[in-house]
């Protein structure tokens, strides 16, 4: 218990900081605006499609067509949420240690009977909690809108949220690792570049899948191992789609899938890697930060 108390003290202080610096306020405001925009767009586009389909004929194709439109809208909306959350995670992770080192506020704090590891885990816990809450609320809100408007049933909202949160932990942890040694700006440039490369690799892997090109698929996987954020999102995207749609795309082969989303679940090996990844990042961060002269 004696070891946990300082961690909680730091986590609490970090949360107060997030609130006091208006980070939470701005995030809530923008998120509310985004959900409203998504709801309006969904109602409008889905309603339009519904009327058009009704005009053509009623048959098996109509249901699938409408379903596809709902899936595309929902997946794109969630993709945007995931993207915003990822930026937030990177932003929080990148400056998590270095900004207080640079400003000098950490000197008095770390001279206290507080281990460097306790400080690091306290920061991580607070940011992880913020990101988890953000992802759960946003993914939940979008799926709820889709359900109310189109009767949309995601395969597993819980798994989808869990994987999106895991993606954020990956980003937060690697950002924190960089933050142990790099100045905030340099770390930010590095992390956003890596994030961009991972995103690109995801697209390359997707196209490779369509083209059945082994090299492109392997390139996608290779980059995913180095920086698994996009791979975890693809894992989450599977559970976001309805079972009926997945059955349809499954029958039609990968060609019928949509970019930014996967038609098959994440492999167990990739999932294991994605869980081990932030743990490893934090372990290395602890070593790097523990030895650093301030």
């Amino acid at each position, binding site marked *: 218990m004696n070891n946990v108390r300082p961690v909680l003290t730091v986590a609490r202080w970090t949360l107060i900081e997030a609130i006091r610096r208006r980070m939470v306020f701005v995030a809530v405001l923008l998120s509310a605006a985004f959900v409203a925009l998504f709801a309006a767009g969904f109602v409008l586009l889905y309603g339009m499609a519904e009327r058009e389909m009704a005009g053509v004929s009623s048959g098996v194709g109509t249901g699938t067509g409408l379903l596809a439109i709902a899936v595309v809208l929902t997946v794109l909306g969630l993709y945007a949420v995931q993207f915003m959350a990822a930026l937030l995670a990177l932003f929080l992770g990148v400056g998590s240690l270095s900004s207080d080192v640079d400003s000098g506020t950490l000197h008095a704090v770390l001279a*206290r009977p*507080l281990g460097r590891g306790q400080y690091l885990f306290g920061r991580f816990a607070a940011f992880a909690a913020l990101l988890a809450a953000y992802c759960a609320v946003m993914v939940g809100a979008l799926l709820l809108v889709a359900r109310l408007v189109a009767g949309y049933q995601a395969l597993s909202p819980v798994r989808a949220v869990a994987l999106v949160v895991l993606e954020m932990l990956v980003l937060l942890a690697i950002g924190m690792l960089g933050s142990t040694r790099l100045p905030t700006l340099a770390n930010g440039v590095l992390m956003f570049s890596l994030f961009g490369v991972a995103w690109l690799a995801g697209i390359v892997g997707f196209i490779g899948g369509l083209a059945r090109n082994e090299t492109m698929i392997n390139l996608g996987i290779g980059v995913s191992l180095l920086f698994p954020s996009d791979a975890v999102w693809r894992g989450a995207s599977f559970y976001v789609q309805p079972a009926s749609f997945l059955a349809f795309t499954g029958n039609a082969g990968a060609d019928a899938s949509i970019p930014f989303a996967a038609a098959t679940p994440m492999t167990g090996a990739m999932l294991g890697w994605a869980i081990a990844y932030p743990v490893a990042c934090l372990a290395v961060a602890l070593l790097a930060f523990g030895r650093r002269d*301030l």
Partner: protein
Amino acid sequence: MADRAEAPPAIEVRSLRKTYGRSVALHDVSLTVEPGEIFGFLGPNGAGKTTTVKILVGLARQTGGQAQIFGRAPSHLAARRRIGYLPEHFRFQEWATGYEMLDFHGRLAGMDAAERRERIPQVLEQVGLAGRGGEAIRRYSKGMTQRIGLAQAILHRPDLVLLDEPTSALDPVGRREVRLLVRALADDGVTVFLNSHLLTEVEAVCDRVAIVDRGRLVRAGRLSDLAGAAVQLRLLMDRVDRELLAKLAQHGEVAEVEGTAVTLTVDSVDVAPTVAETLIGSGYRLYGLVPVQPSLEDVFVGLVEGGDG
């Protein structure tokens, strides 16, 4: 009493060495600070004072040698529980109020809620910030920030307080207040390690002093020992001529002549009456005769070459 005799020193540094890449910040520094002492650590900027303190509070790790706080390495949380520290670049979370920052530090120091509620207003008062705890640190002046930093350092009643240039942002009144605060801490049995390049400040409060220059300890000891046994007499005459200087040379060494004022270095202050009698007996008129101890500044400048270098 037996326990006290065996109590480890508040600070013990042996052959401490610190290098950053190729540059050497500390060469072989050794010093001991006994519990209850006010210890002054003096040196020009860049001499290695802050590096030493950072090693003592666990922010930096030495390349060689040993540093101990009450018999334990600074990496030990138990050692750090007993220290209070004011960093050189006192910066605190600007978004927080002074009270909140102290509350955070109180929690980290292991104080419970009741202790914090009682103690925080006390330390705010002690550093001259009574009633200002509710303001955001962002709005504090530099001097106020340094004061809240001092409050943070003494908050949990530590046994050892390390202050790195604690008056750099304070005006003369503030400096005097810090001197009184340091004395009050010493009266309560707290050991104070004061890093400073302000000689008068150190001279006014410290029991013992160490002088560092370019990473080396050049002198350590009681203030009176540092200055050496030599005493000077300052004489104010009606006139100064060769005959006078010759007579003075019989009693000591003429150190300085400035107008009609002569500074004479003597072995003991006991020669003063004899000097006076000689001069008056020879027809000189004596307007003043004052024995003076060489100031710490004289010692310091003598030891540290190149001033600010």
